[in-house]
C-alpha cells in the first residue's frame, strides 16, 4: 500500500529533476564550467559591492536606500510572513472544523457555515497570481499570434493587408491599452458567478495585447522564408495545404516561432507588472504599489526584493521556453541561446 502511494511521487521527482537538469546548458568539460561559474561569481560580487557602496550614500524620505544586506533581511522577512500566514490559515480552518463538529454533536440538524480564510495575500501568493496571469495572457496571445503569423507568411496579400495594423499597434504601451481594456471587460464580462476576477482578466488581456506582436512578426518571417526547393518538393508531390503547413512550413519556421515566443513572454512579463499596478490585480505589481503607498522604512527593501524576484522569474521563464524549444525542435545540434 505504502509503495503504491509513494512510487508516483518518486517518479514525479525524478522527472522534475530531469527537467531541471535539462535547463542547465550542457558543457563539455567540468573545468570550463568551473571557469565560467567563477567568472560569473566575480561579476556578481563586484556588483554587490558597488550596490552596497552606492546605496549607503543615498538617503530618501523613507530612509537609506537598501543595500544587499537589508534586502536579504527583507527577503527572509517576507518568507517568515508567508509561513506565519500559512500557520494562521491552518489554525483558522482547524478552529472552524472543531467548532462545526461541536455544533453537529449538539444538534445533528444545526446549520453549519464554512467560511474561506480571508487573510492578507503574502508575497508568495502574489508571485503565484502573477505567474498565472502571465501564463493566461501569453497563451491567449499565442493562440492568436501563431495562426495569424502563419497566414501572413503564406500569403503576401494578407500580409500586406495586416502589416500596417501590426506596425501601428506594436509600439503601443500597455498603459495606453489598460483603461480601454478595463472598460471593455467591465462592460462585457458580466456573470453571476465569475470564474475569474475582473482585474485578472483585464491584466491578462493587456498582457496578451502587448506580447502578441513579436510572435506574429517572427512567425511571418519564418513561414515566408521556407527554402524554395522544399516548397517545390511540396508542389511536385501535390501536398494539400494542411499537410504542406504541417510537414514543410511549421518545421522550418519552428526556430523563428520560438524566437518570437521568447520575446513575447519577456514582453508579457514586463507588461504584467505595470498592468497589475494600475489594474490593482493582486500580483507582484500590486505588491510593489502597496509597499510604495505604505511608505514604511522597510518598503524600499521589500520592493527591491520584488525587483530581484521579477528578474529571476523572467530569466527562469526564458530558460523554460528554451527547454521547450529543445524539446520540440528537430535540429538537436543547433546552438540555442
Amino acid at each position, binding site marked *: 500500500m505504502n509503495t503504491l502511494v509513494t512510487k508516483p511521487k518518486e517518479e514525479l521527482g525524478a522527472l522534475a529533476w530531469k527537467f531541471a537538469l535539462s535547463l542547465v546548458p550542457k558543457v563539455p568539460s567540468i573545468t570550463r564550467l568551473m571557469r565560467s561559474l567563477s567568472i560569473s561569481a566575480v561579476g556578481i560580487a563586484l556588483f554587490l559591492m558597488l550596490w552596497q557602496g552606492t546605496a549607503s550614500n543615498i538617503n530618501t524620505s523613507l530612509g537609506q536606500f537598501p543595500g544587499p544586506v537589508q534586502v536579504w533581511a527583507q527577503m527572509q522577512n517576507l518568507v517568515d510572513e508567508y509561513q506565519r500566514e500559512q500557520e494562521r490559515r491552518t489554525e483558522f480552518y482547524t478552529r472552524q472544523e472543531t467548532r462545526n463538529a461541536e455544533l453537529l454533536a449538539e444538534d445533528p440538524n444545526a446549520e453549519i457555515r464554512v467560511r474561506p480564510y480571508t487573510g492578507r495575500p503574502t508575497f508568495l501568493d502574489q508571485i503565484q497570481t502573477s505567474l498565472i496571469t502571465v501564463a493566461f495572457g501569453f497563451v491567449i496571445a499565442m493562440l492568436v499570434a501563431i495562426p495569424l503569423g502563419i497566414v501572413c507568411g503564406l500569403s503576401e496579400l494578407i500580409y500586406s493587408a495586416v502589416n500596417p495594423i501590426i506596425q501601428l499597434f506594436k509600439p503601443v504601451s500597455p498603459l495606453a491599452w489598460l483603461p480601454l481594456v478595463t472598460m471593455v471587460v467591465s462592460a462585457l464580462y458580466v456573470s453571476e458567478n465569475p470564474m475569474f476576477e475582473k482585474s485578472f482578466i483585464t491584466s491578462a488581456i493587456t498582457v496578451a495585447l502587448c506580447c502578441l506582436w513579436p510572435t506574429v512578426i517572427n512567425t511571418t518571417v519564418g513561414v515566408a522564408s521556407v*527554402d524554395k526547393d522544399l516548397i*517545390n518538393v511540396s508542389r*511536385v*508531390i*501535390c501536398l494539400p495545404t494542411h499537410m504542406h503547413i504541417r*510537414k514543410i512550413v511549421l518545421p*522550418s519556421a519552428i526556430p523563428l516561432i520560438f524566437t518570437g515566443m521568447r520575446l513575447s513572454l519577456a514582453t508579457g512579463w514586463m507588461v504584467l507588472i505595470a498592468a497589475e499596478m494600475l489594474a490593482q490585480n493582486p500580483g507582484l505589481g500590486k505588491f510593489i504599489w502597496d509597499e510604495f503607498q505604505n511608505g514604511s522604512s522597510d518598503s524600499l527593501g521589500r520592493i527591491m526584493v520584488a525587483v530581484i524576484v521579477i528578474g529571476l522569474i523572467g530569466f527562469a521563464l526564458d530558460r523554460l521556453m528554451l527547454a521547450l524549444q529543445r524539446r520540440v525542435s*528537430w*535540429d538537436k545540434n543547433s546552438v540555442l541561446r
Partner: protein
Amino acid sequence: MQSYLEISKVGIEFNTESGNFRALQNVNLKVDKGEFISLIGHSGCGKSTVLNILAGLYQATEGGVILEGREVNSPSPDRAVVFQNHALLPWLTVYENVELGVKQVFKGKKSRAEMADWINHNLELVHITHAKHKRPHEISGGMKQRVGIARGLSMQPKVLLMDEPFGALDALTRAHLQDSLMEIHAELGTTVVMITHDVDEAVLLSDRIVMMSNGPSATIGEILPVTLPRPRNRLALADDPDFVHARQQVLKFLYDKHKFPGAKAA
C-alpha cells in the same frame, strides 16, 4: 504518331524589374518512352527553365508540353524532380522523406504494408537501406542525392526530371551514382530528362544529348544521338572511338560554336 513527351514551340518571358526578359524561344523536342535525354549548355542558357516548365513549376508564355496526350500545366508526381541540392526535408529521416511522396501518390491505391514494401524497395534500388533511419545531416552528399533519386522514383513518375543531380558531388561519388543511375534506368526503363554540365556524364548516360544555345532567347542548338550499346562501361568506353567522337562533338558545340557568354575572347 504522337510522341510520349512533346515540347512544342515553348517560349518563356520573365517580368523582371528591368523589363521583360525572354529566356527561351521556340524550344521543340520529342522524347520517346524510356529514353534518357541530357540537356547540356552553358550556365544561364535556360536548361533549368526547360526542366521547370516540364515539371509544371513554371508556365510557358507560349507553346506547351504534352505528356502522354495530356497537357502539362501544373506540378504533379507524374513528373518527379530530383533537385540539384537534394532538397530533402532535414527534419525527416531518409525513410520518411520517401514516405511523404509515396503516401500522397498511392493514397487509396496501396495498403500501409504495400507502401512500406514499396518504400523499402526504392531505398534498396539506390543502395541506401542501411541509412534509412538517419536524418539528412547525418549522411554524405552522395547518399543524400541517392535519397533524392529514390524519392523521385518512388512516385512512379512518367518522366523523371533531374536538375544537375550530381553537380555538387566529388568525381568519385559522381561516378558511383552515374553507374547506379544506369543500372536503375536499365532495370525500370524510366524516361529521364537530365540537366548536366558534364560532357562525359552526358555521353555516358544519354540516348540523346540536347545542346542548348546561349541565352537570352535560348533554344535547342543541336541534338546528338548517342548510339553506344548498353550496358555501358566507363572504363571500356574511355578509348572507344564512338565515345570519343561524341564527346568531341559536344565539346565543339559548347566551346566553338557557342562560347560561354562570359568568356568572349578577342
